[in-house]
């Protein structure tokens, strides 16, 4: 084993103390060391966005972070989006209702990116949604279902807040 470092971090609300190789990127750490395989690797050079997670609430590419850089940070992955095991987040429901996924491989990145985006922009236009996910590539859907899901989710979240 190469040079390692001890890190403490919180992932989806759970605390971890781990020793990790310093060259391990964060995506591999989450997937292989923590067993959270929901975050996917599509390119490992920061373009496809399938590895996107939330770092202290901000969407970032986990293939472009070293695991050791997550020391002391809070991470949310796709596994942490649903409020509970029996209930999905309105965004996830909207994806299901609007056919926002087909193979599901880009979906982790789409969801985390949109969670941040909708938090900052509760009432976006279609154009704004498309630009928000410009850093997330999908080869299956042509994006239309994803955009519809995002706009639907925005409405559901606004209604929930207003109610």
């Amino acid at each position: 084993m190469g040079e390692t470092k001890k890190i403490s971090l919180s992932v989806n609300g759970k605390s971890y103390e781990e020793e990790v190789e310093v060259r391990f990127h964060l995506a591999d750490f989450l997937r292989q060391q923590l067993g959270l395989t929901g975050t996917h690797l599509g390119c490992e050079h920061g373009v496809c966005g399938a590895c996107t997670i939330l770092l202290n609430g901000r969407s970032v590419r986990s293939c472009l972070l070293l695991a050791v850089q997550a020391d002391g940070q809070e991470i949310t992955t796709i596994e942490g989006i649903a409020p509970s095991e029996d209930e999905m987040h309105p965004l996830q429901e909207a994806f299901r209702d609007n056919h926002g996924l087909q193979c599901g491989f880009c979906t982790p990145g789409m969801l985390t990116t949109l969670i941040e985006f909708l938090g900052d922009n509760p009432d976006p236009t279609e154009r704004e949604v498309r630009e928000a996910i410009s850093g997330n590539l999908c080869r299956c859907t042509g994006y239309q279902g994803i955009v519809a899901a995002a706009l639907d989710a925005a409405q559901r979240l606004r209604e929930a807040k207003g109610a």
Partner: protein
Amino acid sequence: MKPPPFSYHDPSSVGEVISLLGNLENPKLLAGGQSLMPMLNMRYVLPDHVIDLNKVDGLSYINENGGTISIGGMTRQRDLEDSDVIKAKCPLMHDALLQVGHRQTRNRGTIGGSLSHLDPAAELPAVCAAHDAVIVVQGPNGERDIPFAEFPIAYMTPATEMDELLTGIKIPTWAEGHGYAFVEFARRHGDFAITSAAALLEVGEDGAITRASLTIGGVGAAPVRMSDIEQALIGQSGDEEKLRELCEAGREIDALGDVYASSEYRQHLATVMSRRALVKAYDRATGKA
């Protein structure tokens, strides 16, 4: 595509960084990681040491003081994008930032990292060139200023010495109400600019240009200030046909050819983007936009 083995360091002060740079063989600085990490993953670089700047104190700030904006090298592009100071006092940078990569890359990418990396197609170096920014670096002998025109010395090579760290950027602001525009041609939203043009204008009451800055990016190792066009613009109005004529000089620019575009195409775009940037900047200066 996994990084090669290296030793990892996470200093907490600029002094520590400089000391490490002076003592380590074959180190690489890690800022936002949006440029270095792909290179590490693809093994295009094989550093023996990675010096992580993300825990260094005091390098993230945006201050404005008497006509100069001071930005810390580790300030995230996202924070610059959201900054009211930047929107008000350096709107060219805000304009440019909206075209820099994607939300996720701006959340991590830093201004210091982008400037040190000096990708020919990057937007922030062009903004610095346009504004005659000053790069502040710190080394074992203290701090020094490098005017941006002297900062890129070769392809992706800044004037920072091996044991120096870029710590800040000083941007002289333009007069309130000045015109600005950052226009780029990219294949897709967020892609690197194949060719970009950054324009700054001050326009008098009579509609005549009193001050001009025009920078072409994406064409070579450094963004290019089109000083001949800048001089010719003084006294001109925003007449588009006249601007078109003046911007033809852009076709003479030295431009690189690569998998994205030939040099001829970049030269052609230089004339188009510069004209469009000037038109937009003029409209903004005269309140039409």
